[in-house]
């Protein structure tokens, strides 16, 4: 079941606002939407893992928060609380980033009359978060082969060397990727003052209307409960 990129953007904004500002019960109402949509995308393993971890964090926190658990226990309880609060945002963003292709996102933004000068870097930025982590992981593995680890005696003695061993290769790598991306973008007529066509049909359907109505209903519940 495909949603319009504008609906996904609306869902992400509403979900973030509700999860960060309303009681946890509303978080469940909000992240249920991307969870169901991810099931339609056959990502049931991710959804199962997410719910197991989320339930463990919520139940663990509710069980331990009133108990005297010592310093280490306090750290564990804090981690559980952060996980239970931040995971709903993670699943919403995961759904949006996994199911939205760059060209669909650009077409959606173009329909909203957002200037290309904002759309191009925004698209690159959203698509680049996974790349940053992938590159960092690959560089980390390469450094491990040389015996350079993040938490070792050598790096603890001179913490600035970690900048040289991890950050600089990452910068070189992503700068080169960026240069290649610019060339690829130019060959695909990506320019700030041209309006591009999109082969994927963009438009609102019944499922978009359902998500819109659901989000507005949740916002209404939150507002009424505050009054």
């Amino acid at each position: 079941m495909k949603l319009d990129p504008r609906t996904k953007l609306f869902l992400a904004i509403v979900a973030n606002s509700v999860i960060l500002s309303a009681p946890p019960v509303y978080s469940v109402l909000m992240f249920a939407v991307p969870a169901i949509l991810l099931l339609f995308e056959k990502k049931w393993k991710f959804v199962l893992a997410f719910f197991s971890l989320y339930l463990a964090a919520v139940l663990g926190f509710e069980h331990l928060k009133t108990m005297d658990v010592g310093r280490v226990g306090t750290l564990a309880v804090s981690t559980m609380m952060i996980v239970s609060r931040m995971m709903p945002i993670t699943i919403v963003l995961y759904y949006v980033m996994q199911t939205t292709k760059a060209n669909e996102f650009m077409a959606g933004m173009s329909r909203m009359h957002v200037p290309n000068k904002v759309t191009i870097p925004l698209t690159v930025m959203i698509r680049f978060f996974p790349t940053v982590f992938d590159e960092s992981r690959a560089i980390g593995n390469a450094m491990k082969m040389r015996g350079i680890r993040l938490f070792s005696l050598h790096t603890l003695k001179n913490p600035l060397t970690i900048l040289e061993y991890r950050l600089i290769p990452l910068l070189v790598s992503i700068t080169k990727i960026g240069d290649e991306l610019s060339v690829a973008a130019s060959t695909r007529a990506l320019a700030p003052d041209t309006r591009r066509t999109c082969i994927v049909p963009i438009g609102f359907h019944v499922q978009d209307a359902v998500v819109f109505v659901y989000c507005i209903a949740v916002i209404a519940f939150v507002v009424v409960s505050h009054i």
Partner: protein
Amino acid sequence: MPNVKTTGKKSSNTLVRDLVNVGIFAALYIVLAFLSSSVGYIPALIVFSTGSIALVTSIPLFLFFSKIERSILCCLIFCGFFGTAMFVMGQGILMLSISLLVGLLAGVALKVFGKGFAGLFSANIILCLMSSSMMLPLWTSTEEYLEYTRTMCDAGYVAKLAELSQSPWPLVAIYAFGILGAVVGGFIARRVMKKHFERIGLAK
């Protein structure tokens, strides 16, 4: 080629390259800022967290500043993205406004001082004010910020924040450490630029 006449306008290809660079470095900056700000989860190190952000992000920022051609536009969009990310994460509109202002000032500094060390260094120091403002709502709207933090952190941490908000000096220290981090990071970045990036042709 001395006889070649140009229109004086910058090519749209370089604009695309600038915009792509803004996207890439904004993604990297946000990731590095969040990772290095995690120092602040230790209550005793809250005021040092801005210094660690400025120190770690100086090298990518130097490289970013040296690669862009339209400094004001790029800095404005770059800081606008960071401010919007903070806004979406629950920070107020104040953070977004400060980010845009800082972006404008950093772009003007780059334009005025050029791409030499003075320009990059001053733009880096101005830009560190953006990450240093992340905790400003603790003093401007204390109750709301504490309520927001309460949803994510334990009671001990919130009590420490409430204690800090009683006096303006921790805020001064937060900005001072941010600027100090940017100054130290700037000198490290200068050395790194010469040692690595200029040698392999990534920066001039």
